[in-house]
């Protein structure tokens, strides 16, 4: 990975999950609105401290959150509050 030994390649197929499609769509929308660029996303992904612990789209989501805060689109508090609301909806009856 990145020129370092990465071990054997997993050639297995996997289904794309709904949240992964959503992550892709949100990034497309942010790009179309001029709020985020591919180069910024790449940089933000490379900057993730837990890069190697995350899956492909987990990196996208974590990096996008950092960029949204960095670019002043949302605050960390706003994101956390909204995430807590959604979590409650899922836990509800």
């Amino acid at each position: 990975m990145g020129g370092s030994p990465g071990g054997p390649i997993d050639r297995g197929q996997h289904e794309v999950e709904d949240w992964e499609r959503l992550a892709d769509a949100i990034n497309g929308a942010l790009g179309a609105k001029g709020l985020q660029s591919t180069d910024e996303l790449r940089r933000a992904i490379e900057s993730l401290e837990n890069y190697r612990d995350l899956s492909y789209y987990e990196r996208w989501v974590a990096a996008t959150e950092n960029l949204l805060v960095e670019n002043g689109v949302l605050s960390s508090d706003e994101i956390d509050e909204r995430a807590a609301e959604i979590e409650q909806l899922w836990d509800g009856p």
Partner: protein
Amino acid sequence: MTFEAGERVRVLPSGKPGHVRTPAYLKGKVGWVESLIGAFPNPEELAYGHSGLPERPLYKVGFRQIDLWDSYTGPTEDYLYADIYEHWLEPERGTT
């Protein structure tokens, strides 16, 4: 500085911090200019929300795999091609 197709080049062994598009495994390696791809805004600047202007020439650069990997056992004619921006290249006049 402009490079012609076929010209031998070395990738700068720069440790420039931040986002760069030059793969670490190519830094310091010698290859040849295969072709000029075009000129594009500098991704190292775009990555931090800047304009990336002026545009930088981008080349398709070829390398021999045996020049890249210590343990490479494949044929000498195995090549790797990478897109490298001009400001990452210097003329290579030595022989290998």
